[in-house]
């Protein structure tokens, strides 16, 4: 083995400097993008949507991950399943719209018909020796974490999903995702590599300068700060936040709402982090007046002032669970320099638009924030393409989670490719 020449990717992984941003090829190279799709998005649990995306039997949602198209269906036993969206006959794509409702899954090319368990139930003209049983749809691993849907394209999915579900489930359960509906969905194409989109999400260093809406409800201090540099006012604010966090965690835990931080962002294969964070102002929701956006609260909640439960999963999602609504984000890479950011706003399934909530108010903060972030990702993508770019240092006080994202990524790539 001594004379094996490592591939550039292996060398890049080996030479990555901890505490620093990744070298430019990780954000630019089509080859590394292919490797990302195969290793990261092909072999890990990917967050793709919520059970309320397919609320009733016969509902279908199509999610494309790279070249792979997956149909997620709710079958007649109310079970959510995922299949490769490819007919077993001549390979035609089965379902074409992002959301639809079907009786059975039918290929429009030759009407091969599959029931919602993926079994082939109708195929004309195939002769007596044809075995329908051998031509069912190919299943895709799918798990629902309290209503959040994760799929894994690998033959064998990482087995530590259960551990994540056991530890994260109790945090999410009180918000009862299954009892919600998608009030609004917005897809934006960010002009940057998916890792830049993720890195941007994993810190709030940039919030003060860029997110005038988000920082109304959200304390930037919740994501770290450097106390030694702060003036009197900022120090007082940080102390106020520290006290608030301690008091609220105590209250929420006493009320049966798990709130304290769990951080496994670079310590598990199916990595995650969560913490319930106090909100500023009225403390109710991610809105410009910090009050609940929806009159119908989620789950069994009787008051809206429950802070915001933040959940992060590697490699591609983050979520905010509030007392009155949920905002959930997934990042789906398109190519080395473009990524789809899919945001869904969920409210109680019985909530009526215009009566219980005003849509503009519900989505205002995050729609503005997403647009701002998209621009930031774009200028970063432009910058890393410059010959002058070299990896820069992360702040030890506010960019710990970015560092963990990169650690996880480098670790997972290395585990599959060898260092």
């Amino acid at each position, binding site marked *: 083995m001594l004379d094996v020449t490592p591939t550039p990717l292996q060398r890049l992984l080996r030479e990555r400097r901890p505490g620093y941003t990744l070298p430019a090829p990780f954000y630019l190279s089509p080859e590394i993008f292919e490797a990302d799709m195969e290793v990261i998005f092909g072999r890990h649990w990917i967050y793709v949507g919520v059970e309320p995306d397919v609320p009733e*039997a*016969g509902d279908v949602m199509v999610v494309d991950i790279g070249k792979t198209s997956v149909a997620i269906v709710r079958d007649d036993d109310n079970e959510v399943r995922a299949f490769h969206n490819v007919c077993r006959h001549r390979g035609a794509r089965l379902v074409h719209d992002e959301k639809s409702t079907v*009786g*059975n899954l*039918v290929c*429009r090319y030759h009407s091969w*018909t599959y029931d919602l368990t993926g079994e082939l139930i*109708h195929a004309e003209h195939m002769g007596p020796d044809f075995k329908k049983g051998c031509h069912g749809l190919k299943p895709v691993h799918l798990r629902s974490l309290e209503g959040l849907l994760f799929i894994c394209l690998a033959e064998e999915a990482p087995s530590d999903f259960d551990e994540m579900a056991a530890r994260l489930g109790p945090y999410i359960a009180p918000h009862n995702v299954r009892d919600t509906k998608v009030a609004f969905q917005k897809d934006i194409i960010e002009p940057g590599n998916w890792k830049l989109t993720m890195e941007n999400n994993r810190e709030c260093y940039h919030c003060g300068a860029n997110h005038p809406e988000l920082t109304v409800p959200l304390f930037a201090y919740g994501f770290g700060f450097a106390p030694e540099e702060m003036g009197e006012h900022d120090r007082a604010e940080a102390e106020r936040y520290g006290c608030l966090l301690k008091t609220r965690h105590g209250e929420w835990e006493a009320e049966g709402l798990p709130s304290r931080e769990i951080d496994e962002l670079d310590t598990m294969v199916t990595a995650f982090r969560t913490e319930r964070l106090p909100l500023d102002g009225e403390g109710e929701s991610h809105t410009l007046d910090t009050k609940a956006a929806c009159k119908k609260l989620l789950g069994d909640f009787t008051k809206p002032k429950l802070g915001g439960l933040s959940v992060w999963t590697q490699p591609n999602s983050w979520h905010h669970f509030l007392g009155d609504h949920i905002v959930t984000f997934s990042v789906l890479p398109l190519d080395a320099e473009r990524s789809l950011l899919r945001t869904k706003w969920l409210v109680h399934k019985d909530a009526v638009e215009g009566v219980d909530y005003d849509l503009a108010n519900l989505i205002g903060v995050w729609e503005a924030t997403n647009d701002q972030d998209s621009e930031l990702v774009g200028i970063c993508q432009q910058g890393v393409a410059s010959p002058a770019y070299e990896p820069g240092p992360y702040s030890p006080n506010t960019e710990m989670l970015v560092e963990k994202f990169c650690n996880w990524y480098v670790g997972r790539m290395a585990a599959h490719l060898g260092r």
Partner: protein
Amino acid sequence: MNSASTEPAAARLAASASWDAEADDALVCLAVRQETHDVKTFVLSPPEPRRFAYAPGQFLTFAFEVGAETIHRCYTISSAPTRPHALSITVKRVPGGPVSNWLHDNLKAGDTVRALGPMGDFSCFTHPAQKYLLLSGGSGVTPMMAMARTFHDLGEPRDVAFVHSARSPADIVFRAELETMARLDPSFRFHAVCEADAPDEAWSGPKGRLSLDILTQAVPDFREREVFVCGPKPYMDAVRAMLREAGFDMARHHEESFDFGALPEAEQQAAAEAGRALDAEAEEAPAATVRTFRVEFAKTRRVLDCPENETVLDAARKAGIRLPSSCAKGLCGTCKSKVTKGTVAMTHAGGIRQREIDAGMALLCCSKPTSDLVVER
């Protein structure tokens, strides 16, 4: 205190749920009324209090247990949907007609019959107009009566002229009620035409069969009206010819028609019986066995006749019309189409969702018409 809990009539009036024949097809006969010497009205209601919802002119399909045999018959509802707590059919005794005789001789208060429906789109509601002409012969009076009663009950300022043909004054069904309605409501006019005098009443009105002269005398502005016709086939044929001759716009002519021509073998016997009934008594009500409906394909502008016991897909195939299809058993949904007008009976095998059905979609491979249809194909 709560009289509704003990008083059956109060309970029936308090009923809020609609009768759903799919859930319970049993109807109890509450009362039998002698309308004329050979016409009876049977008042029906579900065992549990329910409200009926239908369009005036619609019919029910009944399964009567006559002797050891189950015989299916369609009867138009004669009552008005404005009085939703009970429903009536009005039946004329037909010499040699097993069903009408059985009904007259056997069905009494407390008995149960089975019924499906309501069905059909022969209704003034399907063709809204300000002025109507209702033409009926014999017991073809029933759908007209339902329409007339509905407008009367609603107090709608609707100009309705009702011209009924009967054999004699003693055979005018609902005569007193129609005359009362005409007296109370100036916008409703009733005219009877009789072929002969009754033993105890000489007919002073127009005599003979309905003619253009008689019609012009009674309803001079008949050409401006939406016309509904129901009665024995010879009557309807004569009316059609008469209106056409008078230059009437036949797009506004609607009749309750029954095609006895292309009946499948299984229904031959029943059809023959219905035919015999018609021969024996020219004024027998339109109570047929197998109906044929008009199916119009809106995009391709094709029209075909589809018997009620044949799928739309099969009828289309026979007519040389090619519709997208594959499994032909309600599984694959390839033939899924929007039915923009009319109703079908569908037995699918999972190829369509209830939500799609609710949105007007149907699988043509397993849908049989229960009314005229317009299909978006």
